[in-house]
């Protein structure tokens, strides 16, 4: 999608029928998450939600939503968390009108419009790219931006690889590249048949949305300088998914971003240290006097 991008006009919310499918999560800390299936909009959506407090809209990463329960639960202590599965991931059907991160941004912005107040938007890796695409289009419904190991921006000469090619390594090599503790890797061998189907669909979805240009939008940095949003940029101190110095450049390109490292983590601090990431988010938002 090149050229002019028009922010969505606010429309009356389509009535959605929602059904709670099951309760998920570890159950620690007394917070229960629900998995809700939502029909009636252009796409059927699966949404994980729980907790109470100001709205927080979470955009999951390229490995799907399985494994993110500890983070969701930790955030649900202080926020009403809502995490829609990007169509095509997990069990959710592919939507033909969603061809890239920009289209996903339009979908998620439409969901934000239904909240009673602007939401904190948290984007994890691939989800961080979508969050940036949302923010450059329309900030009316975004209270603050949290980017955890985001992709979306690319810097440097043509032969400077910004991101590990997720399609160019076997599972063992990927685990070592992506995680400080490779045991935390979301790998296929340990999965039962149904979970393996979801794992494969997640990989297909990453190809669908992020194949070329690879996990970024050329020129997005031309727009991210002027977001005017409270923005926290978190990344693992041992992140080998990105080129050295990548997040320093992101911090420079995203106007107003505050960068903090999460020690002892690779590319997915929200998987390796979810409570710490939630705490850093909470700290940032209360420090800002956020909702």
């Amino acid at each position: 999608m090149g050229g002019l991008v028009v922010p969505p006009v606010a429309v009356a919310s389509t009535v959605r029928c929602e059904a709670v499918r099951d309760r998920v999560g570890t159950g620690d800390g007394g917070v229960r998450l629900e998995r809700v299936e939502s029909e009636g909009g252009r796409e059927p959506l699966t949404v994980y939600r729980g907790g109470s407090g100001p709205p927080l809209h979470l955009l999951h990463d390229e490995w799907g939503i399985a494994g993110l329960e500890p983070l969701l639960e930790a955030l649900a202590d202080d926020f009403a968390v809502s995490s829609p599965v990007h169509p095509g991931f997990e069990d959710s059907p592919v939507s033909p009108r969603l061809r890239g991160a920009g289209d996903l941004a339009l979908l998620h912005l439409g969901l934000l419009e239904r909240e009673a107040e602007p939401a904190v938007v948290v984007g994890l890796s691939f989800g961080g790219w979508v969050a940036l695409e949302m923010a450059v289009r329309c900030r009316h419904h975004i209270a603050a931006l949290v980017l955890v190991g985001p992709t979306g921006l690319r810097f440097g000469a043509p032969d400077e690889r910004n991101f590990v090619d997720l399609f160019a390594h076997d599972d063992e090599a990927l685990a070592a590249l992506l995680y400080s503790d490779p045991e935390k890797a979301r790998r296929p061998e340990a999965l039962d048949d149904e979970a393996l189907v979801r794992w494969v669909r997640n990989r297909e979805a990453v190809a669908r949305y992020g194949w070329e240009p690879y996990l970024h939008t050329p020129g997005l940095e031309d727009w991210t300088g002027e977001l005017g949003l409270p923005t926290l940029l978190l990344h693992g101190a041992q992140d080998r998914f990105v080129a050295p110095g990548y997040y320093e450049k992101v911090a420079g390109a995203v106007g107003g971003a505050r960068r903090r490292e999460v020690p002892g983590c690779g590319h997915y601090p929200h998987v390796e240290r979810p409570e710490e990431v939630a705490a850093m988010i909470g700290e940032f938002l209360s420090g800002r006097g956020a909702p």
Partner: protein
Amino acid sequence: MRAWYFSENGYPYLPDKSEYDSVRVSVPSRLADPRLVADLYDRYLDEFVAAEAAGFGLMINEHHQTATNLNPSLGLLAAVLARRTSTARILVLGHQLAFRRDPLRVAEEMAVVDNYSRGRLEVGFVRGVAPDIAPANAHPLDTVERLWEAHDLIVRAWTSLDGPFNWESEHYHYRQVNLWPRPYQQPHPPLWVTTSSTYNTPEIARHGYVCATFLSGYTLAGRVFHAYRETAAEEGLAIGPDRLAYACMGFAADSDEAAREGAERMMWFTRQTRTAPQWGRVPGYMPTNELVQLLRGGNRREGAEARGGGIDGLIENGILFCGTPDTICRQVEEHFKRTGGYGHLIVMGQNGTSGHEETLRSIELWGAEVLPRIAALGSAFAD
């Protein structure tokens, strides 16, 4: 039966497989000695010329960033063959249309080769195999759609004779399509499509193109041919065996033993090299449940099972026709019968470390003592 000679034209001088990660995609090009490559190009051309003399048509294919195949450009090799040969038909099988960003370039090059060969070209289109995705950075999703979309544009470009036309399809945008020159053969060269499953076969049948299946043994080949004939019947198309093609490995020698030894050398790439798994397991390229099965270690292809059984397994499964001409004729006849019959036999007559002299002898024996005896096959279906 029309016979075609084919070789992947590989570079078999690699060090031990422990010294590099993968023979495809990431094998470093410093392992290719340019002098040896040039020698191999000369040698393989001589083998194609010998095959022409033996009565074969010539088939070539294209792969990228691999030591298993030194032909990354069908157009280039086809053009060379067009000038080194004079009577053999030249079958390019095939252009990886789903991986080519500029289908018009394919249309142009084929028109040129058809003229250089004065109408001896036959053109094949394929989806492309998974290890060629990374080299092209081809999008792995919607490859079947792109194959047919590019095909539609190419055929239109060959046959549109009255000046520029517009073409804005989902994946290809041009505003002034006006191919020069047009093909020698009118309206265009005969078309082939390869398939490795029954999924794409009905579409090939509906277009009336030759449907080729490679090294698929008895069961899968039979299924593909059956699917083609069934679709043709449904569409009310009267077709003959010349719509169906089977590609085998083939090696002839003066004794069964010598032929087996030559066939063992053909297996060098399969046995002595590996392709790193990520290059073959590209998400979105195959249906979800197929990739799931692949990850679980399942592989239903007869070829893979047969490779576990060695040369005997390959022969038993109808993938390799190997022995004296007498032996080979029996093998071909059995395969023909059991699969329902076909009109084209593509013989992969060299691979791996099989040597130049034994390959020439094999080609000679095929030409002199197999092709005449199987010529009558394929004038009618087997059933």
